[in-house]
């Protein structure tokens, strides 16, 4: 286990919870298969919609149909990175009042929740993404549907930049999950945060339609806001829509948002837990 590499390091508790939760989440095979099946279905529907849309006149579209297909499969493969919900474990603790007992751990509560969120999202994405790649990159070309498949990145540099940007996506996703945790802790309910989060994230990340399709006037704003770093930036880099300095600028933007959201989440979490009232004598 990775944790044993740092037997006395300050990171040990966080690596332990990360590894522990990751292992636990990987056990849910049925959930992974169900998620994969759902995402295949939605991938096919979306691609059919794009195909119909482009058949009606593709001239002047910001993305080629090929790139839209790539974007769609990537979106389905990495769907579980979208912070639609607060961490369900933390939601349980908020509901039962056990959230206060998180303060009994000799750890920084923010870093602790962040490590949990990282383990939660990556452990769900990994099996689903592997199945999706097997389906969309390997199986589809084999059955003669290569035109509708998920191709590898066009260049090595696109692949490298995507890897960096995907890391940004993972870190951003965890930072947003913890912020949802904090909203939930402050409001003592998971309903509000979760109801608002899903549509907001779907729209502004570029999950519903790539941000490139939005009106020109809105695009600078849409590309600058933090949630673009969850979907639009990494996927556009993947198919080569953002290269060189443009790609690095987009990655830098992701990094800035990660730092801002981590600092804001930390400050807010301490405040919310400081004000927490615990009922019952």
């Amino acid at each position: 286990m990775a944790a044993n590499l740092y037997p006395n390091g300050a990171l040990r508790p966080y690596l332990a919870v990360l590894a522990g939760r990751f292992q636990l989440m990987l056990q849910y095979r049925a959930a992974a298969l169900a998620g994969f099946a759902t995402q295949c279905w939605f991938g096919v529907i979306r691609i059919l919609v794009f195909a119909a849309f482009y058949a009606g006149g593709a001239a002047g579209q910001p993305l080629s149909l090929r790139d839209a297909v790539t974007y769609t499969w990537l979106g389905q493969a990495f769907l579980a990175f979208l912070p639609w919900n607060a961490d369900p474990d933390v939601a349980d603790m908020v509901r039962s009042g056990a959230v206060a007992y998180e303060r009994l751990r000799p750890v920084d509560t923010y870093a602790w929740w962040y490590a949990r969120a990282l383990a939660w999202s990556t452990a769900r994405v990994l099996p689903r993404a592997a199945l999706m790649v097997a389906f969309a990159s390997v199986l589809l070309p084999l059955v003669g549907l290569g035109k509708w498949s998920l191709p590898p990145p066009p260049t090595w540099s696109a692949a490298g930049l995507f890897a960096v940007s995907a890391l940004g996506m993972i870190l951003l996703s965890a930072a947003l999950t913890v912020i949802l945790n904090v909203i939930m802790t402050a409001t003592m309910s998971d309903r509000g945060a979760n109801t608002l989060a899903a549509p907001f994230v779907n729209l502004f990340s570029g999950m519903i339609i790539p941000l490139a399709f939005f009106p020109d006037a809105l695009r600078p704003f849409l590309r600058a806001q933090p949630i673009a770093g969850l979907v639009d930036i990494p996927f556009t880099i993947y198919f080569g829509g953002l290269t060189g300095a443009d790609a690095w600028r987009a990655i830098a933007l992701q990094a800035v948002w990660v730092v801002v959201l981590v600092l804001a989440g930390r400050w807010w979490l301490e405040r919310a837990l400081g004000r927490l009232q615990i009922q019952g004598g």
Partner: protein
Amino acid sequence: MPQILVEGLAKTYRVAERDPGTWGAVRGLVRRRWRTIEALKGVDFSLEAGELLGFIGPNGAGKSTTIKILSGILQPSEGRCEVGGLTPWRDRIRHVARIGVVFGQRTQLWWDLPVIEGFDLLRDIYSVPPDRYRRTRDELVGLMRLEKLLDQPVRQLSLGQRMRCEIAAAMLHEPSILFLDEPTIGLDAPSKLAVRDFVRVLNKERGVTVILTTHDMHDIEALAERVIVIGNGTILADSPFETLRQGVLAERRMFIDFEADAPDLAGLDLAGVTVHGRDGRALELAFDPRVIAAPQLISRITAAHSVADIHVDEPAIEEVIARFYDLHGAGEA
């Protein structure tokens, strides 16, 4: 310097209130009324290392609030509190690394993990060196007889088994202070005894300071030399349990079985004696030993009536405490 020092600790919080009914709910949307609740109103006490303190009081008296402040979960509104030289809520991380906490109504072990994996996770959370961890864990497992439970997921354990694991889990990092909030709640008799034995061993043999809250007076009788009674947010008494008993309910009970139906004792000179119960041939008397000594009482009764059996007892501890709460108007609000 005492290990735990508490001075003038107060905690107030506000809760939103609304008038009853639909109209009240609508009005509450516009204008909130707030009610201030004083959970603690100036609590002072200190505790030396190695003491075992029992904290009792009716529901809502402020026991758990005090424990939560001492363990660093809650910030008080006012007052000073030092545990081993640290202020719990200000030096939270360093403070919680040195204490162990068990809440009888919650679990700190991971529900889906086998007990042993939960222990391993705690080893990492508290950064316990591996060899030291193994030694402590094996000792605790032996003491609490957990060998057969270690491989079971926590959710499959009975409450009694789980509570033994919880207390062991709270001791894995060898804290010098242990907080137990209602550790025996809902347990069956053997589990209660096991928990009490374990707490006694930790306190007497390891010198662990223990603060215990409970509603089970037998916990207090079995464990605590010192008892703090808390009610309505203030300390009502802080003394050995015996002192408390004598101050509140010095009376004794005499249980008499007569040869015939229990007689009316009106004709005898029995000052300081009241009839507490009567059932066929059995009679239960309450008497104050400072007014009339037991031998005197016995001789006056046996002189007038023929008696089959007599024994003298102290009132049950629950009765002592209930009487104490009544005297201080501290029954549950």
